[in-house]
């Protein structure tokens, strides 16, 4: 009796899953999890999944004798399979419900901060840095790391104050204080913290992973040829709309 409805049950389950992904896409939440390319792949595939689910739900009506030889064999006739999949979808739904839009400080510490070489950040070196009303260059951490091997950029940045937003971390990667940002390659799961050392005369009593705006000047350190920010001021700020930076997958391929 129930077997008659297996296709419809499976179809409804698939439509439910596609609804959730479409919802995440249109609510804008998907950007926290994926690179733009994967966001579009997600929405296209969800629409396909929805169509498969819809057709499956109404299949019997459309085509009552779709396979004379094996009608029963081809039905999704394993009730356990649909049941298990539905339970797992509930877990997925709950995870999406409680999921924040960034990792906690535990993950930052567990993954360790890396100071990538310029070739690995892959941002656009030719980008014109924008200045705020005080004349400070507004930068991302990747801009600074990219500038290490670019004399033109470094000399441009050396002459002015810079302003960078990131997460404040104490005593990590052997530095006293460091400014960190997560860099996403394909999805949030593969994101890696990248950071730049801060040198300051003042002590800042801030908790790890507090979002801060740092104003200072860039200097290339002699001992390891890595840039540091000589801090003028650190102020607490709000979390950016997109907490993670993204690796530009197609730039310079």
């Amino acid at each position: 009796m129930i077997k008659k409805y297996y296709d419809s049950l499976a179809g409804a389950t698939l439509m439910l899953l596609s609804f959730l992904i479409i919802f995440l896409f249109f609510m804008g939440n998907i950007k926290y999890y994926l690179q733009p390319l994967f966001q579009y792949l997600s929405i296209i595939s969800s629409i396909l999944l929805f169509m498969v689910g819809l057709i499956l739900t109404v299949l019997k009506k459309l085509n009552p004798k779709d396979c004379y030889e094996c009608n029963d064999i081809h039905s999704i006739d394993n009730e356990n399979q649909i049941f298990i999949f539905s339970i797992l979808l509930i877990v997925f739904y709950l995870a999406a419900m409680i999921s924040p839009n960034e990792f906690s400080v535990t993950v930052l510490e567990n993954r360790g901060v890396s100071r990538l070489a310029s070739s690995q950040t892959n941002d656009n070196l030719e980008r014109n840095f924008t200045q705020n009303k005080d004349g400070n260059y507004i930068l991302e951490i990747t801009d600074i790391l990219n500038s290490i091997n670019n004399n033109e950029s470094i000399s441009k940045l050396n002459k002015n104050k810079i302003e960078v937003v990131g997460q404040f971390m104490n005593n990590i990667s052997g530095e006293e204080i460091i400014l960190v940002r997560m860099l996403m390659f394909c999805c949030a799961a593969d994101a890696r913290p990248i950071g730049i050392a801060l040198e300051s005369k003042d002590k800042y009593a801030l908790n790890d992973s507090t979002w801060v705006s740092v104003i200072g000047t860039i200097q290339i350190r002699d001992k390891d040829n890595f840039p540091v920010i000589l801090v003028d001021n650190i102020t607490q700020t709000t979390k950016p709309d997109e907490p993670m930076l993204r690796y530009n997958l197609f730039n310079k391929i």
Partner: protein
Amino acid sequence: MIINKENILLRNLLKYLNLLFKMSLIQINIHDVAFSFVSIILEGLPFLIFGAIISGIISAFLPSNYIIKILPKNRFLAVVIAGLAGIFLPVCECAVVPVVRRLIKKGLPVSYAFTYLLASPIVNFLVAASTFLAFRGQNPLFMASSRIGIGFAIAIGAGIILLNAKPRSILKEDMFNDEKEHDHGQSKKDKFSHAIRVSAGDFITVGSLFLVGAFIVSILNTGINRQLLSVVGEHNIFGTVSLMLLAFVLSLCSTSDAFLASTFSQFSVAAKLGFMSLGPILDIKLLFFYRSIFKKSFLIKFAIGAFISVLVLSISIGALIK
């Protein structure tokens, strides 16, 4: 999405769970696990959906044993062609499983199918390009070609070993009795509805395993402190083994793992090659995928064999660059 402030019961429950996990060796934070889990699912689902749809199309429209007819009679040559098929049919590790599952049901010998399964996520243009890009300034051509070479060698080796294996000793029972593949030689409408059913069935079967695998990976991905690896980083063999274990645990996509590998500055070339070569053929997520096709006993043997082979090849190739 952040939970509603009114939902105090759920918030308190999560708080207590986080507290409980803080006391264990792996630092598990429920919110981090949820964030990682959702991102892995969202990244993998499109490929799984495409794979399931291709599987449905193969089942309905590809005549049984057609592939056998177009493959060369020489079995070794056929294995090599299966290994190179990824160049022309690049399918990532999430999409390849439903496709291979269906091809086996359509009569493709296990040895050829397994070669394609292992080769396609690594022997393809996208992986070559991403590896080259990630290693710019670090001998990119050598790293990309070595990685692809190792992947190809292992896929071909595994295919040749399986040439004389009995399918019943490798494949799960339902690979034989589930569908009794046959041609659906009726109207296009019949074939279409058959393709839809198969796509949905494959998606549900493989998708369930993917969800479980992704959940386990999320716990390990966020909870294990990777700084521990730096202790063995400079040792050639221990460093390689530890990065390979990391690849197994993290279960990263083959198009993105090179970016992470290139940041392991304290590790040897061999260790980075091991990390990039093992991940696309063997990790926790893939083991769950593979379980939809293969017997557990076969997977254990394969896992041991693949691990040792990647280790030996990575260290041997790594020695060249010294």
